[in-house]
């Protein structure tokens, strides 16, 4: 495997889970946003229309009440005796009086009207004779009404409400007749100017924009100039209600009142109203999205951990097992899911069978090697059973030293094989009864290295190599084949060294008889620290009683215990 293929490895399960959940949440939120925006716009359109409608009702109520109040006031003013007397007398004398007298009369009427006007709040007070010719006018905008000209009332009759155009301005008027015992002698008009101020008042009452259109022309409006002009131009402004697009913005409009050719409209901008509503909706959605994202994060982490945790533990156990070459490992059941547990069980069963096969293989190997070792021992009658005994004794020493079980197993087999290299030593040297020459001893010293070489060819015997190779090294460095010192020599090799020596001393040789155990132990004690490691010798002393009979014979039968 190369570095590039490492970077191209598939994404982690966690990342995948997160991505899937996030994409789902994002899609959901997107869909919800679209739906909400559309429905908000729809609702806003309806609510604007509803608000205009209620504005219309309110305006209608307020306006009719105001007109009624104005009419009451007008009716009260119309009962002014002096005003009536002035008008009636003027009318009676008009036929016969001179121009200067007429002027004087009109001045008198004007004065009386001024007095009356001071009591009521209207933009203009106009007094007309029975032919609806203006006699006098008073009030803030009284000078807009030319004297001696007829009043053309649109959309109403005398005594009613109507719209009058006078002096270039449009007025909403209420009118009441002046009567002497049911005989009309004139008409009094109270006029309200339909100007920007009125439009603004209208807008306030209707809680919307307002526009006043008379004969298709805009009179006043609280709309922006451009929008107002567009509204003036649209055919929709002839209708009762609906929607209209002004300067690219959607407006809902409604006619509040129509008097003659004059209409009062309330307009509400849908876009403007929906903008704030949409903003609120988006803000809420954002909060929901944040919550959903947090939830998704937590949920996906939990899910991923639920999925990857057991798999990770399983793969870690597996990696551990493969690293230690321990095929007897049994993976724990995670209990997270049935599938994973089934996998673990299958794996464990598989590994159990592998372990069994491995053990059988090892047993076969071990058996052959033991046979080899036994055959080797058998070359020399004096050393028969030597390897078995050293093995038993080494295991006992190892136990006395509290070595771990797996190390003791290594010692057991290693001790059995420790002299396997002697297979390459000729009989004349190996079985020579007398002292060895230097050359002969050199041959003898070759056997640990030869043993190591033999073992190297069998993989599962690699751990035993140090025992075979180094079981003749001495702590004082005078051993062979490498002359290692003290701590450089591994513990199994030290143990086998001591056990080998003990068995050699207590065994019969061609040149001498077997020596008793106590003497052998003393002999070995003598060389503790130089030829043998002291703590191993101590352990031998501790271990011996457990493995020998009363007569000092080793109990070899424990070999397979």
């Amino acid at each position, binding site marked *: 495997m190369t570095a590039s293929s490492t970077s191209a490895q598939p994404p982690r399960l966690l990342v995948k889970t997160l991505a899937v959940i996030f994409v789902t949440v994002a899609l959901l939120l997107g869909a919800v946003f679209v739906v909400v925006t559309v429905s908000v716009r729809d609702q806003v359109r309806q609510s604007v229309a509803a608000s205009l409608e209620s504005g219309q009702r309110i305006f209608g109520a307020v306006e009719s009440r105001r007109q009624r109040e104005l009419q009451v006031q007008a009716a009260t003013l119309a009962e002014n005796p002096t005003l009536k007397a002035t008008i009636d007398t003027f009318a009676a*004398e008009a036929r016969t009086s001179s121009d200067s007298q007429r002027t004087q009369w009109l001045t008198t009427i004007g004065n009386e009207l001024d007095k009356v006007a001071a009591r009521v709040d209207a933009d203009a007070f106009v007094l007309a004779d029975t032919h609806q010719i203006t006699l006098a006018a008073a009030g803030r905008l009284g000078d807009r009404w030319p004297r001696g000209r007829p009043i053309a009332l649109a959309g109403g009759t*005398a005594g009613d409400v109507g719209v009058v155009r006078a002096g270039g301005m449009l007025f909403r008027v209420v009118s009441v007749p002046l009567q002497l*015992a049911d005989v*009309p002698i004139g008409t009094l008009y109270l006029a309200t100017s339909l100007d920007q101020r009125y439009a603004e008042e209208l807008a306030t009452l209707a809680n919307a924009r307002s526009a006043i259109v008379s004969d298709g022309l805009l009179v006043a409006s609280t709309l922006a100039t451009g929008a107002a002009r567009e509204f003036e131009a649209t055919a929709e402004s002839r209708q009762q209600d609906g929607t209209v697009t002004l300067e690219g913005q959607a407006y809902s409009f409604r006619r509040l009142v129509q008097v003659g050719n004059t209409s009062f409209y309330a307009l509400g901008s849908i876009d403007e109203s929906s903008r704030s509503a949409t903003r609120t909706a988006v803000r809420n959605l954002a909060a929901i999205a944040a919550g959903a994202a947090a939830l998704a994060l937590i949920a996906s982490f939990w899910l991923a951990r639920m999925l990857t945790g057991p798999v990770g533990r399983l793969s870690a156990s597996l990696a551990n097992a493969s690293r230690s070459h321990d095929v007897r490992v049994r993976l724990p059941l995670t209990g997270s899911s049935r599938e994973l547990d089934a996998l673990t069980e299958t794996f464990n069963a598989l590994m159990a069978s592998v372990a069994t096969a491995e053990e059988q293989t090892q047993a076969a190997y071990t058996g052959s090697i033991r046979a080899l070792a036994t055959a080797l021992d058998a070359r020399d009658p004096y050393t028969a059973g030597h390897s078995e005994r050293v093995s038993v004794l080494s295991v006992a020493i190892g136990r006395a030293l509290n070595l771990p079980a797996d190390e003791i197993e290594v010692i057991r087999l290693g001790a059995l094989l420790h002299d396997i290299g002697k297979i390459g030593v000729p009989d004349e040297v190996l079985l020579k009864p007398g002292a060895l020459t230097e050359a002969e001893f050199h041959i003898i010293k070759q056997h640990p290295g030869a043993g190591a070489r033999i073992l190297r060819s069998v993989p599962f015997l690699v751990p035993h190599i140090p025992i075979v190779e180094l079981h003749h090294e001495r702590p004082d460095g005078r051993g062979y084949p490498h002359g290692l010192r003290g701590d450089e020599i591994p513990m199994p090799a030290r143990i086998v060294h001591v056990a080998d020596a003990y068995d050699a001393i207590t065994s019969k040789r061609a040149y001498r008889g077997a020596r008793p155990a106590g003497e052998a132990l003393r002999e070995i004690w003598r060389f503790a620290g130089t030829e043998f490691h002291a703590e191993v010798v101590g352990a031998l002393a501790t271990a011996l009683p457990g493995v020998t009979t009363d007569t000092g014979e080793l109990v070899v039968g424990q070999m397979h215990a």
Partner: protein
Amino acid sequence: MPRRITLGACLASGAVLLPLLAPAPRAQAPDAAAGRITGHIKLTTRVHAPLPANAYPSRSIGKHEAPQIPEIRNVVVYLKDPPFRGALPVSRVELHQQNETFVPHVLAITRGSTVDFPNDDPFFHNVFSLSSAATFNLGRYPRGQSRPAKFAKAGLVKVFCDIHSHMSASILVLDHPYFTIPGADGNYEIQNVPAGQYTIVGWHERVGERSASVRVEAGRATTIDMTVPVEDLP
């Protein structure tokens, strides 16, 4: 829809009240060189459907109790500017205030005559005039009292009450005695008219003068009928 009726024919019920009305002065002795004018005044009127929505009825109280004066009694027939020499006969007549109405509504008198304004209502009234022929204000006074006004100048005098704005009356002050107010049946007669050519006028406050030419011969009665079209104004 407006319809045309003849008031004089249908308002005979008002005749009961006629004794109350001040008759035109006719106390002059018959003159041999004089003739008289008789005739019939036909008053036409266009009556509209109820007046346009006056949501607030006039403030008159007990209106139904007001004396029903035939409209024909609001007409004055007189000669237009006849030459008259000698002492103008004067009279003293009453113009009552009854049920918030001036009774009669129209009065014709000679210059120099005096009108008394008795208050018959159980509340105060006022009498005032802004007319150029006679400008006066008699003030306010209670029931039972009467205040006079003398009319020294010929012309039309409109009289009002400043308490009850719907009350009004017209007093026609003339420089000669040749005038009369027709009877409820529309017939009139002007006596002691010197022979000659005249313009005769039928006057109504809402119509003004309707005139005709008339030739009066001594010792004879000349008959001339006139039509005065009183139209309700829009």
